[in-house]
Protein backbone atom coordinates (compact mmCIF):
# COMPACT_ATOMS: atom_id res chain seq x y z
CA UNK A 1 0.00 0.00 0.00
CA UNK A 2 0.99 3.58 -0.42
CA UNK A 3 2.58 5.20 2.54
CA UNK A 4 -0.25 7.38 3.75
CA UNK A 5 -0.13 6.41 7.38
CA UNK A 6 -0.07 9.97 8.63
CA UNK A 7 -3.06 10.86 6.54
CA UNK A 8 -4.91 7.77 7.75
CA UNK A 9 -4.37 8.86 11.33
CA UNK A 10 -5.88 12.29 10.91
CA UNK A 11 -9.00 11.34 8.97
CA UNK A 12 -11.83 9.04 9.84
CA UNK A 13 -13.13 8.10 13.24
CA UNK A 14 -11.05 8.12 16.42
CA UNK A 15 -11.03 5.02 18.62
CA UNK A 16 -13.75 6.56 20.78
CA UNK A 17 -15.84 7.48 17.75
CA UNK A 18 -15.50 3.94 16.39
CA UNK A 19 -16.64 2.55 19.74
CA UNK A 20 -19.52 5.04 19.85
CA UNK A 21 -20.62 4.07 16.36
CA UNK A 22 -20.57 0.36 17.20
CA UNK A 23 -22.48 0.91 20.44
CA UNK A 24 -25.45 2.27 18.45
CA UNK A 25 -25.94 -1.18 16.92
CA UNK A 26 -26.29 -3.18 20.15
CA UNK A 27 -29.86 -3.93 21.19
CA UNK A 28 -31.16 -3.27 24.69
CA UNK A 29 -30.81 -6.30 26.95
CA UNK A 30 -28.03 -7.96 24.96
CA UNK A 31 -25.51 -10.21 26.66
CA UNK A 32 -22.17 -8.92 25.40
CA UNK A 33 -18.53 -9.98 25.66
CA UNK A 34 -16.05 -7.18 24.93
CA UNK A 35 -12.44 -8.02 24.07
CA UNK A 36 -9.36 -6.16 25.31
CA UNK A 37 -8.42 -2.74 23.87
CA UNK A 38 -10.75 -0.71 21.62
CA UNK A 39 -13.63 -3.18 22.23
CA UNK A 40 -13.63 -2.22 25.94
CA UNK A 41 -14.38 1.40 24.98
CA UNK A 42 -17.77 0.36 23.60
CA UNK A 43 -19.24 0.13 27.11
CA UNK A 44 -18.71 3.89 27.60
CA UNK A 45 -20.93 4.78 24.66
CA UNK A 46 -24.04 2.68 25.06
CA UNK A 47 -26.99 4.99 24.29
CA UNK A 48 -29.14 6.15 27.20
CA UNK A 49 -32.08 3.88 27.88
CA UNK A 50 -30.28 0.68 26.89
CA UNK A 51 -28.94 -1.79 29.42
CA UNK A 52 -26.39 -4.35 28.35
CA UNK A 53 -25.17 -7.25 30.46
CA UNK A 54 -21.44 -7.79 30.14
CA UNK A 55 -19.93 -11.25 30.26
CA UNK A 56 -16.29 -11.80 31.04
CA UNK A 57 -15.13 -15.31 30.32
CA UNK A 58 -13.28 -15.70 33.60
CA UNK A 59 -16.60 -16.12 35.33
CA UNK A 60 -18.77 -13.02 35.69
CA UNK A 61 -22.02 -11.85 34.12
CA UNK A 62 -23.04 -8.32 35.02
CA UNK A 63 -19.55 -6.88 35.00
CA UNK A 64 -19.43 -3.23 35.96
CA UNK A 65 -16.85 -0.50 35.35
CA UNK A 66 -13.39 -0.28 36.91
CA UNK A 67 -13.41 0.52 40.63
CA UNK A 68 -12.06 3.76 42.05
CA UNK A 69 -8.26 3.68 42.31
CA UNK A 70 -7.19 1.75 45.38
CA UNK A 71 -10.53 -0.03 45.77
CA UNK A 72 -9.78 -2.93 43.43
CA UNK A 73 -10.20 -6.54 44.55
CA UNK A 74 -7.55 -8.92 43.11
CA UNK A 75 -10.22 -11.61 42.99
CA UNK A 76 -12.69 -9.49 41.01
CA UNK A 77 -11.08 -9.10 37.60
CA UNK A 78 -11.93 -9.27 33.92
CA UNK A 79 -10.44 -11.42 31.17
CA UNK A 80 -7.72 -8.79 30.71
CA UNK A 81 -6.87 -9.39 34.40
CA UNK A 82 -7.84 -5.84 35.32
CA UNK A 83 -9.90 -4.94 38.39
CA UNK A 84 -13.61 -4.55 37.69
CA UNK A 85 -16.83 -4.34 39.70
CA UNK A 86 -19.97 -6.46 39.77
CA UNK A 87 -23.26 -4.70 39.02
CA UNK A 88 -26.47 -5.42 40.94
CA UNK A 89 -27.84 -8.66 39.47
CA UNK A 90 -24.39 -10.01 38.65
CA UNK A 91 -23.49 -13.70 38.87
CA UNK A 92 -20.23 -15.57 39.33
CA UNK A 93 -19.64 -19.02 37.81
CA UNK A 94 -16.83 -21.38 36.94
CA UNK A 95 -14.95 -21.58 33.65
CA UNK A 96 -16.77 -24.58 32.20
CA UNK A 97 -20.14 -22.84 32.72
CA UNK A 98 -18.71 -19.61 31.36
CA UNK A 99 -17.71 -21.25 28.10
CA UNK A 100 -21.01 -23.15 27.97
CA UNK A 101 -22.57 -19.68 27.78
CA UNK A 102 -20.23 -18.87 24.90
CA UNK A 103 -20.22 -22.16 23.00
CA UNK A 104 -23.88 -22.80 23.69
CA UNK A 105 -24.92 -19.65 21.83
CA UNK A 106 -26.22 -17.81 24.88
CA UNK A 107 -24.07 -14.70 24.41
CA UNK A 108 -25.58 -12.33 21.84
CA UNK A 109 -22.54 -10.39 20.76
CA UNK A 110 -18.78 -10.47 20.99
CA UNK A 111 -16.58 -7.52 19.99
CA UNK A 112 -12.94 -8.25 19.20
CA UNK A 113 -9.86 -6.61 17.80
CA UNK A 114 -8.21 -8.01 14.68
CA UNK A 115 -4.88 -8.36 12.98
CA UNK A 116 -6.58 -9.47 9.74
CA UNK A 117 -10.11 -10.19 8.55
CA UNK A 118 -10.71 -11.87 5.20
CA UNK A 119 -13.58 -11.22 2.81
CA UNK A 120 -14.98 -14.61 3.85
CA UNK A 121 -15.11 -13.54 7.49
CA UNK A 122 -12.02 -15.42 8.62
CA UNK A 123 -10.36 -13.76 11.62
CA UNK A 124 -6.69 -13.71 12.62
CA UNK A 125 -6.07 -12.00 15.94
CA UNK A 126 -3.95 -14.25 18.15
CA UNK A 127 -0.57 -14.88 16.58
CA UNK A 128 1.76 -13.52 13.92
CA UNK A 129 3.21 -17.01 13.63
CA UNK A 130 6.68 -15.49 14.14
CA UNK A 131 9.30 -18.06 15.18
CA UNK A 132 10.15 -17.85 18.88
CA UNK A 133 6.97 -15.97 19.76
CA UNK A 134 5.08 -17.48 22.67
CA UNK A 135 1.76 -18.68 21.28
CA UNK A 136 -1.18 -17.67 23.48
CA UNK A 137 -4.78 -17.99 22.38
CA UNK A 138 -6.96 -17.50 25.48
CA UNK A 139 -10.69 -17.63 24.80
CA UNK A 140 -10.76 -16.02 21.34
CA UNK A 141 -11.28 -19.24 19.39
CA UNK A 142 -14.19 -20.30 21.61
CA UNK A 143 -15.77 -16.84 21.43
CA UNK A 144 -15.74 -16.55 17.64
CA UNK A 145 -17.00 -20.12 17.25
CA UNK A 146 -19.85 -19.83 19.73
CA UNK A 147 -21.20 -16.30 20.08
CA UNK A 148 -24.23 -15.45 17.92
CA UNK A 149 -22.81 -12.25 16.37
CA UNK A 150 -19.13 -11.37 16.19
CA UNK A 151 -18.11 -7.77 15.44
CA UNK A 152 -14.56 -6.61 14.82
CA UNK A 153 -13.48 -3.12 15.79
CA UNK A 154 -10.10 -2.12 14.41
CA UNK A 155 -8.07 0.46 12.58
CA UNK A 156 -8.58 -0.07 8.86
CA UNK A 157 -4.82 -0.46 8.28
CA UNK A 158 -1.81 -1.46 10.35
CA UNK A 159 0.60 1.17 11.69
CA UNK A 160 2.71 0.38 8.61
CA UNK A 161 -0.25 1.20 6.36
CA UNK A 162 -0.98 -2.39 5.33
CA UNK A 163 -4.65 -3.30 4.94
CA UNK A 164 -6.14 -5.44 7.69
CA UNK A 165 -9.14 -6.32 5.52
CA UNK A 166 -7.73 -8.84 3.08
CA UNK A 167 -8.56 -11.39 0.39
CA UNK A 168 -7.31 -14.17 2.66
CA UNK A 169 -5.50 -14.03 6.00
CA UNK A 170 -1.75 -14.66 6.04
CA UNK A 171 -1.59 -14.91 9.85
CA UNK A 172 -2.78 -18.05 11.67
CA UNK A 173 -6.56 -18.08 11.95
CA UNK A 174 -8.60 -17.63 15.10
CA UNK A 175 -11.71 -18.85 13.30
CA UNK A 176 -13.00 -19.48 9.80
CA UNK A 177 -16.00 -17.56 8.47
CA UNK A 178 -16.86 -16.19 11.90
CA UNK A 179 -17.05 -12.39 11.50
CA UNK A 180 -20.33 -10.61 10.79
CA UNK A 181 -19.41 -6.93 10.73
CA UNK A 182 -16.32 -4.72 10.89
CA UNK A 183 -16.12 -1.19 12.35
CA UNK A 184 -13.00 0.74 11.37
CA UNK A 185 -11.85 4.34 11.46
CA UNK A 186 -12.94 4.61 7.82
CA UNK A 187 -16.12 2.59 7.44
CA UNK A 188 -18.62 0.02 8.63
CA UNK A 189 -18.42 -3.13 6.51
CA UNK A 190 -20.46 -6.33 6.53
CA UNK A 191 -19.18 -9.75 5.59
CA UNK A 192 -21.55 -11.17 2.99
CA UNK A 193 -21.52 -14.17 0.67
CA UNK A 194 -20.14 -11.78 -1.98
CA UNK A 195 -17.39 -10.41 0.26
CA UNK A 196 -16.84 -7.02 1.92
CA UNK A 197 -20.06 -5.01 1.67
CA UNK A 198 -19.80 -1.33 2.55
CA UNK A 199 -22.53 -0.32 5.00
CA UNK A 200 -21.46 3.20 5.87
CA UNK A 201 -18.52 5.54 5.28
CA UNK A 202 -17.08 7.56 8.13
CA UNK A 203 -17.71 11.33 7.85
CA UNK A 204 -15.53 12.98 5.14
CA UNK A 205 -14.34 9.61 3.80
CA UNK A 206 -15.16 8.55 0.25
CA UNK A 207 -15.49 5.11 -1.30
CA UNK A 208 -12.24 5.21 -3.28
CA UNK A 209 -10.24 6.16 -0.19
CA UNK A 210 -11.52 3.07 1.64
CA UNK A 211 -11.15 0.79 -1.39
CA UNK A 212 -7.51 1.85 -1.80
CA UNK A 213 -6.86 0.77 1.78
CA UNK A 214 -8.73 -2.51 1.57
CA UNK A 215 -6.99 -5.67 0.38
CA UNK A 216 -10.00 -7.07 -1.50
CA UNK A 217 -12.92 -5.71 -3.50
CA UNK A 218 -15.29 -3.53 -1.54
CA UNK A 219 -18.92 -3.69 -2.68
CA UNK A 220 -20.47 -0.21 -2.80
CA UNK A 221 -23.74 0.61 -1.08
CA UNK A 222 -26.49 -0.29 -3.54
CA UNK A 223 -28.56 2.63 -4.87
CA UNK A 224 -32.09 2.19 -3.71
Amino acid at each position, binding site marked *: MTNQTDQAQIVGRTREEMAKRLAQDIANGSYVNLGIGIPELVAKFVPDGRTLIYHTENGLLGMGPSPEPGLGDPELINAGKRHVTANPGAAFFHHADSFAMIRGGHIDLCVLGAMQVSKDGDLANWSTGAPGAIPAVGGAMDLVA*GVKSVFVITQHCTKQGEPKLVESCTYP*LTGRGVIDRIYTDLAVIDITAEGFQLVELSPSIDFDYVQQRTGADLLPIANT
Partner: protein
Amino acid sequence: MIDKQVSSAAEAVGDVFDGAVVMVGGFGEAGSPIELIHALIDQGATNLTIVSNNTGSGQVGLAALLKAGRVSKIICSFPRTANSTVFPELYRSGKTELELVPQGTLAERIRAGGAGIPGFFTPAAVGTPLADGKECREFDGQEYLLERGLKADFALIKGQIADTHGNVIYNKTARNFGPPMAMAAKVAIVQANQVVDPGEIDPEIVVTPGIFVQRVVVIANPAFESELVAAGVSYP
Protein backbone atom coordinates in the same frame (compact mmCIF):
# COMPACT_ATOMS: atom_id res chain seq x y z
CA MET B 1 -16.45 -39.04 61.22
CA ILE B 2 -15.16 -37.48 58.06
CA ASP B 3 -12.41 -34.93 58.39
CA LYS B 4 -10.52 -33.97 55.24
CA GLN B 5 -8.60 -31.18 56.91
CA VAL B 6 -4.81 -31.49 56.99
CA SER B 7 -2.60 -29.37 59.17
CA SER B 8 -0.33 -27.70 56.64
CA ALA B 9 0.23 -27.02 52.96
CA ALA B 10 3.33 -29.22 53.19
CA GLU B 11 1.25 -32.15 54.41
CA ALA B 12 -1.39 -31.47 51.78
CA VAL B 13 1.08 -31.88 48.88
CA GLY B 14 3.34 -34.41 50.61
CA ASP B 15 2.60 -37.33 48.26
CA VAL B 16 2.81 -35.55 44.90
CA PHE B 17 5.11 -37.82 42.93
CA ASP B 18 7.58 -37.28 40.11
CA GLY B 19 5.81 -37.33 36.76
CA ALA B 20 2.39 -36.47 38.24
CA VAL B 21 -0.24 -34.54 36.33
CA VAL B 22 -1.18 -31.55 38.48
CA MET B 23 -4.01 -29.15 37.73
CA VAL B 24 -3.49 -25.68 39.17
CA GLY B 25 -6.48 -23.36 39.51
CA GLY B 26 -6.42 -19.64 38.92
CA PHE B 27 -6.89 -17.08 36.20
CA GLY B 28 -3.98 -14.73 36.55
CA GLU B 29 -3.66 -14.19 40.29
CA ALA B 30 -7.38 -14.66 40.98
CA GLY B 31 -7.71 -18.12 42.50
CA SER B 32 -4.02 -18.96 42.23
CA PRO B 33 -3.21 -21.29 45.16
CA ILE B 34 0.17 -19.72 45.86
CA GLU B 35 0.79 -21.36 49.25
CA LEU B 36 0.09 -24.84 47.85
CA ILE B 37 2.36 -24.18 44.88
CA HIS B 38 5.14 -22.97 47.15
CA ALA B 39 4.71 -26.09 49.30
CA LEU B 40 5.02 -28.18 46.14
CA ILE B 41 8.28 -26.39 45.28
CA ASP B 42 9.60 -27.22 48.77
CA GLN B 43 8.38 -30.80 48.45
CA GLY B 44 10.55 -31.37 45.38
CA ALA B 45 8.41 -33.41 42.97
CA THR B 46 9.66 -32.98 39.42
CA ASN B 47 8.93 -33.86 35.80
CA LEU B 48 5.38 -32.62 36.41
CA THR B 49 2.73 -32.02 33.80
CA ILE B 50 0.85 -28.88 34.81
CA VAL B 51 -2.64 -28.00 33.60
CA SER B 52 -3.33 -24.31 34.16
CA ASN B 53 -4.74 -21.35 32.26
CA ASN B 54 -1.59 -19.24 32.66
CA THR B 55 2.09 -19.64 33.49
CA GLY B 56 2.39 -17.32 36.46
CA SER B 57 3.88 -13.93 36.99
CA GLY B 58 7.16 -12.61 38.36
CA GLN B 59 9.11 -15.32 40.20
CA VAL B 60 6.48 -16.58 42.61
CA GLY B 61 3.72 -19.18 42.46
CA LEU B 62 3.44 -21.04 39.19
CA ALA B 63 6.30 -19.06 37.62
CA ALA B 64 8.54 -20.12 40.52
CA LEU B 65 7.58 -23.78 40.08
CA LEU B 66 8.48 -23.50 36.40
CA LYS B 67 11.70 -21.66 37.20
CA ALA B 68 12.68 -24.41 39.65
CA GLY B 69 12.73 -26.78 36.68
CA ARG B 70 9.95 -29.02 37.96
CA VAL B 71 7.65 -28.82 34.96
CA SER B 72 8.30 -30.84 31.81
CA LYS B 73 4.99 -30.00 30.15
CA ILE B 74 2.26 -27.41 30.55
CA ILE B 75 -1.25 -27.59 29.12
CA CYS B 76 -2.37 -24.00 28.95
CA SER B 77 -4.46 -21.43 27.06
CA PHE B 78 -2.53 -18.22 27.69
CA PRO B 79 1.15 -18.77 28.60
CA ARG B 80 2.21 -15.19 27.80
CA THR B 81 2.46 -12.72 30.70
CA ALA B 82 3.48 -9.10 30.74
CA ASN B 83 5.79 -9.42 33.72
CA SER B 84 7.39 -12.86 33.60
CA THR B 85 10.18 -14.20 31.44
CA VAL B 86 10.27 -17.58 33.18
CA PHE B 87 8.05 -19.52 30.81
CA PRO B 88 9.24 -17.87 27.55
CA GLU B 89 12.83 -18.88 28.36
CA LEU B 90 11.86 -22.46 29.19
CA TYR B 91 9.73 -22.69 26.05
CA ARG B 92 12.40 -21.32 23.73
CA SER B 93 15.06 -23.59 25.20
CA GLY B 94 12.75 -26.59 24.78
CA LYS B 95 12.89 -27.43 28.50
CA THR B 96 9.14 -27.20 28.96
CA GLU B 97 6.73 -28.53 26.36
CA LEU B 98 3.60 -26.50 25.68
CA GLU B 99 0.23 -27.89 24.68
CA LEU B 100 -1.76 -24.81 23.72
CA VAL B 101 -5.52 -25.24 24.17
CA PRO B 102 -8.30 -22.70 23.59
CA GLN B 103 -9.56 -21.56 26.97
CA GLY B 104 -13.08 -22.94 26.66
CA THR B 105 -11.78 -26.22 25.30
CA LEU B 106 -9.39 -26.41 28.25
CA ALA B 107 -12.24 -25.83 30.71
CA GLU B 108 -14.47 -28.39 29.01
CA ARG B 109 -11.68 -30.98 28.72
CA ILE B 110 -11.21 -30.69 32.48
CA ARG B 111 -14.95 -30.83 33.17
CA ALA B 112 -15.35 -33.82 30.83
CA GLY B 113 -12.44 -35.62 32.49
CA GLY B 114 -14.14 -35.20 35.84
CA ALA B 115 -17.53 -36.23 34.47
CA GLY B 116 -16.34 -39.52 32.95
CA ILE B 117 -16.48 -38.29 29.37
CA PRO B 118 -13.37 -39.31 27.40
CA GLY B 119 -13.97 -37.02 24.42
CA PHE B 120 -16.35 -34.46 22.98
CA PHE B 121 -16.79 -32.36 19.86
CA THR B 122 -16.38 -28.57 19.91
CA PRO B 123 -16.56 -25.92 17.19
CA ALA B 124 -13.68 -23.92 18.72
CA ALA B 125 -10.46 -23.90 16.66
CA VAL B 126 -11.95 -25.46 13.50
CA GLY B 127 -9.89 -24.22 10.55
CA THR B 128 -7.03 -22.99 12.76
CA PRO B 129 -3.54 -24.36 13.44
CA LEU B 130 -4.83 -25.80 16.73
CA ALA B 131 -6.99 -28.21 14.72
CA ASP B 132 -3.93 -29.94 13.26
CA GLY B 133 -4.00 -33.68 13.86
CA LYS B 134 -7.47 -33.64 15.42
CA GLU B 135 -10.46 -35.57 14.12
CA CYS B 136 -12.96 -33.25 12.46
CA ARG B 137 -16.58 -34.28 12.08
CA GLU B 138 -19.69 -32.63 10.71
CA PHE B 139 -22.89 -32.41 12.73
CA ASP B 140 -25.95 -30.68 11.25
CA GLY B 141 -23.82 -28.99 8.61
CA GLN B 142 -21.21 -27.57 10.97
CA GLU B 143 -17.68 -28.84 11.60
CA TYR B 144 -16.44 -29.81 15.06
CA LEU B 145 -13.16 -31.08 16.49
CA LEU B 146 -12.75 -34.08 18.73
CA GLU B 147 -11.16 -33.08 22.03
CA ARG B 148 -10.17 -35.43 24.83
CA GLY B 149 -11.20 -35.19 28.46
CA LEU B 150 -8.39 -34.37 30.88
CA LYS B 151 -7.77 -36.03 34.23
CA ALA B 152 -5.12 -35.34 36.83
CA ASP B 153 -3.42 -37.00 39.74
CA PHE B 154 -3.70 -33.86 41.86
CA ALA B 155 -5.42 -30.48 41.71
CA LEU B 156 -4.34 -27.42 43.70
CA ILE B 157 -7.27 -25.08 44.26
CA LYS B 158 -7.94 -21.88 46.17
CA GLY B 159 -11.31 -21.55 47.87
CA GLN B 160 -12.71 -19.02 50.33
CA ILE B 161 -14.47 -21.26 52.85
CA ALA B 162 -14.37 -25.06 53.01
CA ASP B 163 -15.84 -27.46 55.54
CA THR B 164 -14.22 -30.62 56.82
CA HIS B 165 -16.33 -32.68 54.38
CA GLY B 166 -14.69 -30.84 51.51
CA ASN B 167 -17.59 -28.62 50.48
CA VAL B 168 -16.21 -25.38 49.06
CA ILE B 169 -17.35 -21.88 48.25
CA TYR B 170 -15.15 -19.45 46.39
CA ASN B 171 -14.54 -15.72 46.22
CA LYS B 172 -15.86 -13.87 43.15
CA THR B 173 -13.83 -14.51 39.97
CA ALA B 174 -11.32 -16.61 41.92
CA ARG B 175 -13.72 -19.50 41.30
CA ASN B 176 -12.66 -19.89 37.63
CA PHE B 177 -11.08 -23.35 37.10
CA GLY B 178 -11.49 -24.59 40.70
CA PRO B 179 -14.78 -26.51 40.39
CA PRO B 180 -13.97 -28.45 37.20
CA MET B 181 -10.41 -29.18 38.38
CA ALA B 182 -11.71 -30.58 41.68
CA MET B 183 -13.85 -32.99 39.64
CA ALA B 184 -11.01 -34.08 37.34
CA ALA B 185 -8.31 -34.87 39.91
CA LYS B 186 -7.89 -38.07 41.91
CA VAL B 187 -6.69 -35.92 44.81
CA ALA B 188 -8.13 -32.41 44.87
CA ILE B 189 -6.46 -30.21 47.46
CA VAL B 190 -8.20 -27.00 48.49
CA GLN B 191 -6.59 -24.20 50.42
CA ALA B 192 -9.23 -22.01 52.02
CA ASN B 193 -9.11 -18.86 54.12
CA GLN B 194 -11.35 -20.65 56.59
CA VAL B 195 -12.26 -24.29 57.28
CA VAL B 196 -15.52 -24.76 59.17
CA ASP B 197 -17.54 -27.61 60.63
CA PRO B 198 -20.11 -29.45 58.53
CA GLY B 199 -23.38 -27.55 58.52
CA GLU B 200 -21.83 -24.13 58.69
CA ILE B 201 -22.00 -23.70 54.91
CA ASP B 202 -25.61 -23.54 53.73
CA PRO B 203 -26.04 -26.57 51.39
CA GLU B 204 -27.87 -24.26 48.96
CA ILE B 205 -24.72 -22.25 48.31
CA VAL B 206 -22.13 -25.03 48.14
CA VAL B 207 -20.27 -24.62 44.83
CA THR B 208 -18.00 -27.66 44.91
CA PRO B 209 -19.61 -30.61 46.72
CA GLY B 210 -17.28 -32.42 49.08
CA ILE B 211 -17.23 -35.64 47.05
CA PHE B 212 -14.85 -33.89 44.63
CA VAL B 213 -12.40 -32.76 47.33
CA GLN B 214 -9.97 -34.99 49.19
CA ARG B 215 -7.99 -32.52 51.33
CA VAL B 216 -8.56 -29.06 52.76
CA VAL B 217 -6.04 -26.85 54.49
CA VAL B 218 -6.43 -23.43 56.13
CA ILE B 219 -4.38 -20.63 54.65
CA ALA B 220 -5.92 -17.79 56.61
CA ASN B 221 -4.26 -14.87 54.85
CA PRO B 222 -3.20 -16.02 51.40
CA ALA B 223 -0.68 -13.93 49.51
CA PHE B 224 -1.47 -12.35 46.17
CA GLU B 225 0.84 -12.70 43.19
CA SER B 226 0.70 -8.99 42.42
CA GLU B 227 1.73 -8.03 45.96
CA LEU B 228 4.63 -10.50 46.00
CA VAL B 229 5.77 -9.37 42.56
CA ALA B 230 5.54 -5.70 43.58
CA ALA B 231 7.63 -6.50 46.68
CA GLY B 232 10.25 -8.15 44.46
CA VAL B 233 9.79 -11.58 46.08
CA SER B 234 11.43 -14.53 44.39
CA TYR B 235 10.44 -17.97 45.72
CA PRO B 236 12.04 -19.86 47.39
